[in-house]
């Protein structure tokens, strides 16, 4: 069915759900009007439920009802996926009984009824489409890239059957020409070792990436036993070491025998062994991805590369691909995981079914809700929270001054509570570290600012609208934000935002990186100046900012640079560990009140913690209990 004459305007809703990271995306005449993830509303990280809240917000933003939609698109083909699951059970039988029970329950009650669920939840009678999983990923990258043509590589855990695909895009045409099929999956290999290292699967793979620089690649031989990488870039896993085909875990005894260590229990202390395994895994991933893109380029020569799929969130690998010089330009979909599938699915139908024109390059991901100053002030007045309202210029200057440590010091920090001991495996029983964190001896940390502005970001990264900001020049800022505000593992580095025109002066990068998806080295002579964002190996996961992308955020960093000579600040997501990024002023206020953040800026409202009080460790503990550790 093709739609020769398009209704105007044409609204297409893309949906992803029922695996992880449910999301909804609304297009109007091919332009991305609204995109958001369900977890931001339900406050359950990686929520996989039907994205009713996300869809309601999208429709409300557009001012339409479900009957005004020209099409709804689901981001994968459920029956193909079910076929893969059934065939896998035939293959592994008689193993897999417990996994089979769990899977059949899910499929019989929910996943086989997706058209029915969509129509019932939305009272929708119009056309319904289903794209393939990796096609959705490919589409989300290529159609947002602005490239006239591109080589496309998508790589993730698994979709229906494909785990890795290669294809090309030209004009409005997109075609995937080769694929690697389940169970051979680089994404699942990475997830399996994430599990082995004691982290949460489909949630904490980026922590393994952050841990890698602390280790040495001592386990290359063991990695070679896990995966056979061929000359043409394809690969096959040695399934003896993995149990995800039939088990409820990713790996078993054989993996433990291979490395000579048991699977790490979550939250137990990390040792050099774990860091070395992480490093070995990262090197392997870099190597496989480079082989893949080389092969992709041979098949579909182009100056441009588009990447998507969960593995495309591995910024270290992306940095290696960029540095290889194989392509003149690379576009990585910022919502590279399954949430971006909703976007890709909608775009694919826009082009294939509605014969729509290409949209311009995606210049930003601020596609969620925005809250007016009046709404923010109403909330603060209801809660009896003292605040100041500042003009745009006053706000920029004041916050830049706070970040530059020109404001009076916030004062001594209260004792660390129980929540810290529970949440940090690096220092759960080290009194010396605890004293260090309290700022006893050494420099005092500078102020930390919660920054809540404009429309919410789409995708896993905070890029200046739902962010926690701090001074990158002060190493104590890093410790304070990690341990006293985000309550997360102390090995995890922070990412910088830098003015785009200054990026080459401070980093080994000579192009934009607006979505924090590229890692590059900090120049050696600058590492001592921005220690809080320089990882142990001298690298940083960079976000560049231009004024047309986010004027207020750009002006803030510019004002900070005027004061300090440094165009770089810490930018981390506005949430505590295990919590989704804040969506509403209420979420931001809750996070602010229950952590040791010093200031909160929402719209033009500035809140100071010393005027409100720090709150008790018991209150913080109660707040943190709502979020399961990731």
């Amino acid at each position: 069915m093709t739609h020769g004459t398009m209704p105007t305007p044409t609204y297409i809703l893309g949906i992803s759900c029922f695996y992880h990271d449910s999301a909804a995306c609304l297009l109007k005449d091919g332009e991305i009007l609204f995109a958001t993830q369900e977890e931001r509303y339900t406050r359950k990280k990686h929520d996989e439920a039907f994205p009713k809240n996300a869809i309601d917000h999208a429709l409300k933003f557009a001012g339409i009802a479900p009957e005004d939609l020209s099409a709804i698109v689901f981001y994968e083909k459920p029956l193909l996926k079910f076929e893969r699951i059934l065939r896998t059970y035939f293959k592994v039988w008689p193993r897999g009984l417990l996994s089979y029970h769990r899977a059949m329950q899910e499929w019989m009650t929910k996943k086989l009824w997706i058209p029915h669920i969509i129509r019932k939840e939305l009272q929708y009678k119009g056309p319904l489409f289903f794209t393939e999983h990796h096609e959705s990923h490919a589409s989300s990258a290529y159609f947002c890239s602005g490239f006239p043509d591109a080589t496309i590589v998508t790589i993730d855990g698994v979709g229906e059957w494909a785990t890795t695909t290669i294809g090309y895009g030209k004009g409005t045409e997109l075609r995937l020409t080769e694929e690697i099929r389940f169970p051979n999956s680089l994404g699942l290999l990475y997830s399996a070792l994430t599990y082995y290292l004691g982290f949460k699967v489909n949630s904490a793979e980026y922590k393994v990436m952050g841990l890698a620089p602390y280790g040495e690649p001592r386990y290359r031989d063991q990695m070679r036993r896990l995966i056979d990488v061929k000359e043409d870039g394809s690969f096959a896993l040695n399934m003896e070491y993995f149990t995800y085909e039939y088990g409820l875990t990713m790996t078993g005894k054989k993996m433990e025998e291979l490395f000579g260590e048991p699977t790490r229990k979550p939250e137990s202390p990390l040792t050099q062994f774990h860091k070395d395994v992480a490093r070995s895994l990262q090197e392997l991933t870099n190597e496989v991805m480079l082989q893949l893109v080389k092969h992709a380029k041979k098949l579909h020569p182009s100056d441009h590369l588009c990447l998507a799929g969960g593995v495309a969130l591995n910024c270290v690998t992306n940095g290696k691909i960029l540095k290889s010089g194989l392509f003149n330009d690379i576009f990585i979909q910022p919502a590279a995981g399954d949430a971006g599938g909703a976007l890709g699915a909608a775009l694919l139908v826009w082009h294939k079914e509605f014969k729509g024109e290409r949209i311009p390059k995606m210049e930003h991901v601020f596609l969620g809700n925005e809250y007016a100053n009046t709404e923010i002030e109403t909330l603060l007045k209801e809660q009896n929270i003292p605040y100041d309202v500042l003009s745009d210029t006053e706000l920029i200057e004041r916050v830049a001054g706070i970040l530059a440590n020109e404001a009076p010091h916030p004062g001594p920090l209260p004792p660390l509570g129980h929540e810290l001991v529970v949440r940090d495996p690096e220092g759960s029983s080290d009194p010396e570290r605890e004293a260090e964190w309290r700022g006893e001896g050494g420099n005092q940390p500078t102020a930390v600012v919660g920054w809540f502005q404009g429309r919410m970001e789409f995708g896993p990264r905070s890029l200046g609208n739902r962010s926690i900001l701090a001074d990158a020049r002060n190493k104590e800022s890093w410790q304070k934000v990690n341990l006293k505000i985000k309550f997360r593992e102390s090995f995890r580095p922070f990412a910088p935002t830098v003015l785009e025109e200054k990026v080459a002066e401070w980093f080994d990068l000579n192009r934009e990186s607006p979505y924090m998806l590229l890692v590059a080295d900090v120049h050696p002579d600058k590492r001592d100046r921005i220690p809080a964002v320089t990882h142990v190996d001298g690298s940083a996961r960079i976000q560049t900012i231009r004024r047309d992308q986010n004027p207020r955020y750009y002006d803030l960093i510019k004002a900070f640079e005027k004061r300090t000579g440094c165009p770089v600040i810490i930018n981390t997501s506005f949430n505590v560990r295990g919590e989704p990024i804040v969506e509403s002023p209420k979420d931001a206020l809750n996070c602010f009140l229950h952590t040791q953040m010093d200031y909160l800026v929402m719209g033009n409202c500035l809140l100071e913690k010393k005027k409100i009080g720090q709150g008790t460790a018991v209150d913080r503990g109660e707040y943190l209990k709502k979020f399961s550790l990731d």
Partner: protein
Amino acid sequence: MHLPPPLSWLYAGWMAFSHVLGMIMSKIILTLLWIAGFGSYAVILTIIHLIRKTPPKTTCWQIPPEEFEGRLKYQF
């Protein structure tokens, strides 16, 4: 459904019992399907595979199925 007590208690009890019974029965039926249905098919496939002795692939790349008209309408 609005029933006067004690009928409402009986109704609530019956619904709870039905739910538990449903959970148990579905597990029994799924397990029987696992053994008889999946088991038979798995054994047949294994025998066919052993007889045919399919040679291992030299590469893992596979070509995706052909596109067909209107394929985006379908769940497969």
